[in-house]
């Protein structure tokens, strides 16, 4: 008689059932402790807060044409690559709001806080609060004490523009009388435009050391480019004009002024920013476009605010994984022209 062929006696069956449950429980506990294959495959996810400078509609950042919305979108898109859940804050360029955002992030126990506020004094307090809460900090453009900084280099950006212009003049206008114009919101210290202007002047002199440079301050109003530049054009007939514009709107306005004065052949312009007002899709026909290679707007220096997420989140990810990061990482500014705009900014939408 084979006992296995018969149903077990009720008592024996209960004992086997109990042992089975205990054994299964032990196995399940061991499996969970070791981490199931699925769990092992799952990366740890981090919560990262990004407090944007301002997302006020129409407000532009850093003396360029970029908006806070573009900066925010770049973070949302870049985060797709990382095991990061983003919490977005808007600092509204307001110290009180910035401090309230930090309080909220501390309550949420975020793993890292990215602060973008152009107020050094408030950033000191922000740093203190976050350190007290044990939250890592990364700053954009304006330092937070003891935190890594990702920042523009306005002087370098200006220099790139100036050098491109002086090289163009040295190559194309050899020996002809020329003047340099630095134009834009020149006294806007909060955007570090004086640094940008200084870099532009240095660059203009790179290939034309004797070049006379005139500064024209629009006080942030591109509509002033016409009258200011117009006077210079009138006073300088038969002279080549190299225009280092401090933003793209001023660059476009400068082109328009030269065109109105019938002086397009006398001009060369470089802007700053490379926002969507100067480049676009396959069929946008914006100023910097592969099909517009003859424009007197030679190009514009990229500030990449629309790629901040792609630049900053890799630093954040390294900080979260315990790596030491450089105390200062600088935007890799470069000149964007008709020849490289679709390489640097490949158009992707169908519209």
């Amino acid at each position, binding site marked *: 008689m084979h006992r296995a062929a018969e149903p077990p006696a009720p008592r024996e069956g209960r004992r086997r059932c109990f042992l089975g449950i205990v054994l299964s429980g032990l196995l399940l506990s061991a499996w969970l402790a070791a981490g199931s294959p699925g769990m092992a495959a799952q990366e740890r996810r981090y919560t990262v807060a990004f407090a944007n400078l301002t997302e006020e509609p129409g407000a532009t950042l850093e003396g360029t044409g970029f908006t806070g919305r573009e900066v925010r979108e770049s973070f949302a*898109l870049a985060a*797709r690559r990382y095991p990061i859940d983003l919490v977005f804050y808007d600092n509204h360029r307001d110290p009180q709001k910035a401090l309230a955002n930090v309080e909220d992030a501390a309550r949420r126990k975020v793993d890292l806080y990215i602060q973008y506020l152009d107020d050094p004094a408030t950033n000191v307090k922000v740093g203190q609060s976050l350190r007290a809460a044990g939250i890592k900090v990364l700053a954009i453009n304006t330092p937070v004490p003891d935190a890594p900084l990702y920042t523009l280099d306005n002087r370098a950006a200006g220099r790139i523009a100036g050098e491109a212009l002086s090289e163009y003049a040295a190559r194309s206008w050899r020996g002809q009388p020329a003047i340099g114009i630095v134009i834009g919101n020149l006294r806007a210290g909060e955007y570090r435009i004086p640094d940008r202007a200084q870099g532009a002047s240095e660059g203009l002199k790179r290939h034309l050391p004797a070049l006379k440079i005139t500064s024209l301050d629009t006080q942030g109003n591109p509509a002033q480019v016409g009258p200011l530049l117009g006077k210079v054009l009138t006073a300088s007939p038969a002279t080549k004009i190299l225009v280092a514009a401090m933003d793209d709107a001023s660059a476009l306005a400068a082109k328009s002024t030269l065109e109105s004065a019938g002086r397009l052949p006398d001009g060369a312009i470089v802007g700053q920013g490379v926002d969507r007002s100067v480049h676009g*899709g396959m069929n946008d026909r914006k100023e910097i476009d592969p099909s517009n290679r003859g424009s007197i707007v030679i190009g514009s220096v990229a500030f990449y605010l629309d790629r901040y997420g*792609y630049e900053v989140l890799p630093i954040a990810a390294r900080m979260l994984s315990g790596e030491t990061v450089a105390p200062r990482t600088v935007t890799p500014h470069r000149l964007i022209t008709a020849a490289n705009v679709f390489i*640097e900014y490949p158009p992707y939408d*169908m*519209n």
Partner: protein
Amino acid sequence: MRRKSLFVVIAVLASLIASAPAVLAQTDCKTVVPPSPWGPNDQTGATNRVTPAVTKAAAAEIQEGKVIVMAYPLTDGIPLFGTRFTKTILTATTLAPGAALGENQLTYMEDTWLSQSHVGTHLDGLGHIGRKDCYFNQTAMGKFITQNNMTKLGLEHLKSFATRGVLVDMVKVYQAAGKLKTNPACKKPCIDKGTVITSADIQAGLKMYNVTLREGDIVIIHTGWGNLFEQYPGQNALYNSGEPGIGKDAAKWLVSQKIVAVGADTWGVEVIPGEDPKEAFIVHNMIITDAGIHIMENVRTDLMADEAEKTKRATFFFSMTVPKAVGLTGNFVSIEGIR
């Protein structure tokens, strides 16, 4: 004088010869694109995988004879890429009074179709996407284009698409994972633009219907984004502004599965904006240029997704014929899924 003329001719010829390498400079495509697994003369690509055995096995999917439409109507107002257009002109001259022919009063009509080929539900051929001047199978395309068409890699070289289709319902996958972020403009649940579909997502979708991919399959991804196409022209701008789609990891995995084609209810199949803002349609390069696998865009997937949900079966016989249009880079197609 004669000697002087000779000298001028020699000088001109010498300068032409000297400049020839620059004029004819081409990329060494062997360093840019991998060779085809079907040999150096291959112009067929992944449809080489559609063997009689593959088609016969796919025929087993036809169980009820039910035909499900998987293409959108091609008509004015549908979303089109950039400046693409599609327009028809009807010739109906014999309908004019007294213009009928013969005692039997025969009349006739026909169409002139002025259209770009990559419009509506369409197939991307092997000559559609390259890297520099290098196309599928290390083809230095600069040598093979005329004003009218390509002399290599045209649609005429493709074999049959009579194989098994596999629907992957990403909407269901994302719903099940609790991560569906739909777009409010979609009238049915959809995955929002910019969402990267990963290889894990695709495998989860296959598992949902207990499907294992076979060599020679065609994968159709339902994202729900096609609902915006159906609302044409009202949502064209939104539909065109981006899309959910496969990322690089998913593309790599699909290539490893030796499929014939991948399609979706989106205009580009791959995620837009892409994962790296400095890359342009990189998944197209990975799938078409490097692997000879076709991409099908603007595929109508909702009806098959509904059918799969009802029947718990996501496979079907894939029915699509591509015109033997010599030298074309792609063409609009009609697709039916037969069950």
